[in-house]
Every structure is written in C-alpha cells, then in structure tokens.
C-alpha cells in the first residue's frame, strides 16, 4: 500500500514512489540518496519533536515530519 514516509512503523521498509517538496529540497534529498525507486527504512524517532531517523542506501538521514509527509512510499503488504 502507498502511504507517506512519516506514517510507516518502526523497522519498516518502504520504496520511495514520489517526492512532492519544492525543487531545491527535492534535489537535496536526491543527493542524499532519497529518490523514487530507493528503499528507505524507518529506524527510530528523535527523543523530542517530530524528527525521525531513516536508513537509506546504508546511511542514516534525519528528517522532520514536514518533509517526510511529502515523501510517498510503497510498503509491501506482508510487512504490515
């Protein structure tokens, strides 16, 4: 099923489908490896606030939810 990145449960992997941020932000995400077709795993929440830490192309990336909710991911059904 398709959802936004900020909604996937811990330790869950999804495949990025689409990024709907502004162009510059999208480029920045892309250069960090976040782009369609790439697998991303939600690792943990930051102790405070809406920031969550993801693993993508074997690196850790921290994003606030205001960005994560603009990233559409497909989560394979058997994982849910």
């Amino acid at each position, binding site marked *: 099923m398709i959802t936004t990145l900020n909604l996937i449960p811990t330790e869950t992997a999804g495949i990025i489908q689409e990024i709907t*941020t*502004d162009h*510059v*932000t999208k*480029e*920045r*995400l*892309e*250069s*960090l*490896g976040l*782009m*369609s*077709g*790439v697998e991303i795993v939600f*690792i*943990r929440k*930051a*102790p*405070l*606030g*809406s*920031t969550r*830490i993801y693993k*993508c*192309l*074997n*690196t*850790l*990336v*921290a*994003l*606030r939810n*205001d*960005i994560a909710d603009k990233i559409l991911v497909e989560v394979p059904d058997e994982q849910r």
Partner: protein
Amino acid sequence: MSRDEDINVVLTGNPNTGKTSLLNALTGMSLHVGNWPGKTVEKKEGCISYKNRTINIIDLPGTYSITPYSEEEKVSHNYLMAQTHAVIVQTIDVNALERNLLMTMELLALRKKVILAFNFNKEAERRGIRIDVPKISEVLQIPVVVIEANKGENKEELLEEILKAAQSEFQMPYYLQEMLKENYEIHHEISIRFFKEKLKPFYSIEKTIQRTDRIDEIILNKYTAFPIFLAIIFLMFEITFTLSGPLISAIRNIFDWMGGLVGFLKLPGLLSSFLSEGLLGGVGSVLAFTPLIFILFLMIALLEDSGYLGRTVVLVDPLFGKLGITGRTFIPMILGFGCNVPAIMATRTIKDRRERMIAILTNSFISCGARLPVYLLFAGIFFPKHAVYIVMLLYLSGISITFIASLILSRLLQSQTQNSLIIELPPYRKPSMTNVLKHAWYHTMEFLKKAGTIIFGSVLIIWTLASLPAGVTYGSAESVLGQLGHSISPLFAPLGFGHWSFTVALIFGLASKEIIIGTLGTLYGVGQGALISAIPTHITPLGALSFMFFVLLYTPCLATIAIIRQESGSWKCAVLQPIVTIAIAWLVSFSVYHVGLLFGFH
C-alpha cells in the same frame, strides 16, 4: 599538457568520507587554509612534489552534489568547470558506496578525469560488506585506489594514479553517453539504476552489524539522550575554561611584566605609553584569546569527528524549529559563550543561506567569555550575596534575546525553499588526533590573521584617541576619548550610568570587552583592588545592573564586526548589526532601570 607543467589535483567527496584526512596525509605541513575569493566558503590548498613533478592540491567543500544550489556547491561547480585538465580525486566511504557514486556520475558527466579513493575499507569489512574493487573499477572504467585516509595508507599508489591520469585525456566511459540527460547532466535515478544493474554483483552487504545503531540506542534514547547531551556540553566548557584559564593568565602576566619593563627604560612619555599601552597591550589582548580559541576548536573538532555533532543537531532541533531555524544553529550558538569570532566562523556548517545569516547576526547576544569579568566585578560589588544569580540572569537573558531575535529575523527573511532539517548522521568513529589538532591549529591561525589584526588595530586607534592631544594623561577626561565620553554620556543618563567614565569604558570595550574593567581602573587612577571602592561612588546598584545588561547586549567588539562582514559577505550586515544591537541594548537597559525604579530599587 606538457611533461613539466604542474599537476592540478582537485579533492572532492561527500561529507564524512575522510576527505580532510586524505588532504592532511597528502599535503603534510604545506596545507594552507583560507577563503574562496569573494566567497564565504573555506578553501584549503597544498602543494607537494612527487617524482620531480609539482602537484597542487585544491580541496573543494564536502558536498553531496555539485549541482549548484548552495554556495558551497556553486563554488565547487564553478571551480570544476574552470579546471579543464585537473585530476579529480573523490574520497568514497565504501560503507555508502551507492550514495557516494551519485556524485561520481555527476563528475563524469562534466567530462572530468576522476580517480576514486575508497576509504573506511576495514570498517566496511567489520560491518560485513564485501567489495570486489578491481571489478568495480573495471565496470566504471575509472581508477580506484584503496586507502585508509586516517593512516595515510596507499598514498604512493594514489599519487601514481594521479601522475598517470595527468598524462592522459578524459575518456568517456562507454555506459555514460546514453545516461546523460542534457549534455552535462545526469539523473540521479539513472545512476542508481546503473548501480543496481552493473555494480550490485560486486558489492554485497551480508550481515548488518551496526555499531552505530547500538550507540544511537543510548545517545538518542528518550531517557538518556538529554542527560548525556548536557554532560557533554558541560564537560566541553569545563575542559575549555580549565585548560585555557591558566594559559590566558600566563600570557597576560607576561605582557604586563613586559609593559612594566618599558617603564624602566626611561623613554619619552608618549613613546613609553605607546609601547606599553598600545603595542604590548594590543598584542597581549590578541594573544590572550588564542588558548581559548584553540581549545574550543579542538573540542568542536572532537565532537564532529566522533559523529556526535550531528546528533546534537537532532536533539535540539525541535526547540529551534519553533524559532523558524534548525538545530544546525546550536553549535555556533554555544561556541559564542567562548568567543563570538570562532562562533560566527562556525556558521559555515549551516547549509541554508538564510539560516546562516540569522545565526551570524544574532550570535553577539550570546555572552562571550570576555564579558564575564565585567559581570563578576559589578555583581561582586553591588550584589555580593546574589552574584551567581545575577550572572545567570545575564546569561539567560542573552540566550532569550538571541531566540527572540532569531524568531523575528526568520519571519523577516523569507525563503523560497522549505527550511527544514535534512541531515546525514554519520557513523560513530574514533576521532584521529592528528586531524583534530590540525583542524584546531588552522582555525586558530585563521583567527589570529583575521581577528588578530583587527583587535590589534583597534587597540592602537583607541590608544591614539586616549593619548591625544599631546601631553594629556592617558585616557583622562581631557583626552579626545575622554571628551567624546563626556559629550555622549548624557545619552546614558536615563539608563542609570550617566557618569562619563562608563561611556569611555564602553567605547574602549569596542576593541575588546575585557578592556572595560582595565579602562575604569585607568580612568579612576586606581588598580584592580581599589576599583571595588571607586566604582560605587559613580553608580547605584540598579545603575550597575543596567550597565551589565548594556555590556551584554551592545555593539560587539570590532573583531566580531569584522568577522560578521567576512562571513555574511555583506557590508550592510556589518553596519546594521552594530547599530541595531546598541539600540536593543539601550532599550533593554532603559527598561531594566525604570522597572527597577518603579519597584523602589535604586
């Protein structure tokens, strides 16, 4: 390219890939740190000789991409475009090969001769990553050298490849032509597909033992994260001040002693005063800063190299997010407690231009180490039982005003892009002492060159104003500076410190804040000890409180103003910041004084 020309090597790579270590290993002591001309981006270069060839090494800023959006990326992009024959060496963290190769593809699309330096191979091996390096090099059709940058391993091999590449022309790899979007651009998605189809068979992650994940479980844990964070920040300052304190006093004592020696020389009055107050005073106040700056940079380099710095950004980000900025502002902010000059230099780590400007402009509200002696003296005289609380009140007020100013500026300065937190958290690694020491050393040298000349220059100007017209006692009411103080002191009467001596001290404070106390001593013609009884004859306790607030908030020292000019790249900022801060200081001190009067204090 002829046989004898210099070889230009451009070093590039993602952040945290060991680029600086490789640069240190290659250039040794020839490394020179400066700024890109007309830019606020750091430039490092070095020059070495290998097999009778001169090799110039230029270090580009660590970026994830050379698509020119940020100022650092623009610098990188423009420089690469101009360097048609240069050999590009890209450092690669093999743990994140797929991500790192995104930039390799961008470089190849620009028709650059690229050599890949694979770093952190042993770490990757421990993490269960298997890499067939010769195959990867073969498929990519570019040379790959396996290095361990921290230990300088395989440096020779890399230099050999550089020599080879310098002799040859760029060869377009067979796979690249059909991948190009425009003539010189490539889609990242196509690069990723290429990796999956062509390189994946030679790169496998078998087991995922991740030491970093286990450390993060404690470092970013709901319960332990903040106690650890506070302990580390506290330790950082504790170590900085404990180590630098005695060094600073020693330097001051040496210069005081030399100043005293000048007195024995029986020189003409003006020359003697120039030597002791001007020259030695100037050099002394510059040098006295250096231990503090060096140790602060050392601490920051340790935090950065260990991987913890990125975590602090994530920890404080929720608070900073409410102010319209991100956690990246945090490090420059805490450095400001030491000295605002390195703090403003450290804003280079903030990628977003708008956020960086906010950090540069608001940093001087953070109370630097030079202002503390003023608080200690005044609070000690007027509020001996509550001195600690008064000092804490001042520090907290400084922080609050920084936050309020950031909030206002973030509303004023609009941005087209969403300013949110996007940050890579690098793996935890043991910092390399050589790197950490070199980092601290180069930044201290940079401070000495930039700020040093300005502090020194301003001390000399103030010395001149305090010594003219000829024949007056240094800094007395009759000197140009004394007269200036007299004429503008009525402006400060509504704040509770209308006596001209405070005005003159504040003007001296523009050279460097810790001079304020010494100036009052000179003006009253008494030593440090007698100041305690001299000051209360000219000011009330409430006036003293108001004066402390003014010292906290008013125009930063000239070195800070110069660094604001350099790091913002804007004269407008360097002119407006001092004016706005003095206006804010006036308003706050006025409020403190008059609210105090209303409550019956005096």
